[in-house]
């Protein structure tokens, strides 16, 4: 069975596109759209890598990332942050909160695939 990825993103069409390409690449893809319950979903799914959007309803991706890093169980979980804001300060904030990688929208499918593979070491 392939590695597991949890995609935390609220845009339905982005979810479908990314899910499709990851599934084509052999990944098991779970998705979740609500920031408030994202941590519980990580605990439930136990993914090998998380793709986390910054702008989520009810809770920001940065806050979720902070909590993931504060929990010893997820402190080293690979996290790819997605954001529409590509300024230096946003990148620095993502690094400071512990993002493994940072990608700005719009991104190419190849970039996402490459990043996810790198993070899991496949």
């Amino acid at each position, binding site marked *: 069975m392939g590695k597991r990825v949890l995609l935390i993103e609220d*845009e339905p*069409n*982005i979810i*479908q*596109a*990314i899910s*499709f*390409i990851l599934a*084509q690449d052999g990944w098991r893809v779970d998705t979740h759209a609500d920031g408030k319950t994202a941590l519980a979903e990580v605990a439930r799914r136990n993914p090998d890598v998380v793709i986390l959007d910054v*702008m989520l309803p009810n809770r920001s991706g940065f806050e979720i990332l902070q909590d993931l890093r504060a929990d010893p169980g997820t402190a080293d979980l690979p996290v790819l942050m997605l954001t*529409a*804001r590509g300024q230096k300060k946003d990148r620095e904030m993502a690094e400071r909160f512990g993002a493994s990688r940072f990608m700005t*929208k*719009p*991104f*190419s*499918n*190849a970039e996402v695939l490459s990043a996810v593979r790198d993070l899991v070491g496949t």
Partner: protein
Amino acid sequence: MPATTLIGSRIRERRLTLGIKQSVLAQTVEISPAYLNLIEHNKRRIGGKLLVSLGRALDIDPTQLAEGAEATVLAALRDAAARAEDIAVEIDRVEEFAGQFSGWAELVVMQRRQIAVLEHTVETLNDRLAHDPHLAASLHDLLSSVTAINSTASILVDTQDIAGEWRDRFHRNLAEDSTRLAEGAQALVRYLDEVSDTELGTSTPQDEVELWLEARGYHLSELERALPSGPETVLRGATQIKSTAAKDLAARYLVRYRADAAKMPLGAFSSAAAEAGFDPLRLTEMFSSDPAAVMRRIASLPQDDGQLRLGLVSCDGSGTLIFRKPPDGFSMPRVGAACPLWPLYQALSRPMVPIRALVELAGREAQRFLTYAVAQPQAGAGFDAPPVFEATMLILPAERVDVPDLPVQRIGSTCRICPRAKCDVRREPSVLAAPA
């Protein structure tokens, strides 16, 4: 008499521009040509009646010859030089430059002001891009649509033998996102179009209000009447006030002005102020008012011709200057912080304690001013709210008052252009001071 280094140069320049012989001008103002020659070469100080006579003979407002205008120009030139970090400007020759090439000096000052306005506009735009929630949300929406379109289109192009169901789904998604992108872009353009140029800020709201007040001489006769005019009437024709924020500031200023005028009617106050030597505490007692209100009232008195102008400055609890009426010869920073030695800030650190200080402003010709300052709580303070104070400082040219026997405190305008060589509270290096 007001000290000056440039009045003579300006007189000479004006005389030469008009093609008037020195002997003719001297005769017109009833002084000897030799004396006029000394004046024109800045070897004699003048002021008062002779300055007014020369102004009349040269068909120029005497205040334009007076030091007030020059000090402002010099400060503005020094500020422009301070910002040109890569250019070795001959700062020590600024007075000579301003005296001999007044037109060029005005051009530099005007362009520096334009640059400041543009910088403010850019900062406002940046701020808006960074912090406008509607703009941020709209841009995020657009980028999300573009991302979805980009990913979906790539899938359709790159995936061989894509299942019919997926192909149909992705085509639908493309159509949806394209529509969303188009609508989002149109809405964003509409939103940006609705932002007027004045909202973006051709100058700060405070600048707009102060420009208007400057044009009105800081005296609003419409509000001095028993039945005062409404704010709309007073502000009619105020072409300097364009932005909504400036209108709001001006409206608040008018309310306060009217309250002060009602409590201290012009006729009675004007006489009392002159008799009291503009002492705010004496006037506070006479009119049962508060010192800050009295200082504001003094600063709003109509300007006497030929007299040096009185000044007023206020700051909020953070030390930010919120009102500036610079007196003749006392330049105030247009942006950034003022000299920390101002009695204004001493008052802020000692709320409700009135402060009187004789200050000497750093410069080639040091000028003295008698200042009164006080910090009072801002309106709206309550038991459970943190105290917030507003400080006010009245600035009286020493020539206009009986100066009491007080030690002289040496102050500057703002650190960046202050010539004082050694100052323990200097905030940043000056382009003028020699290294300590």
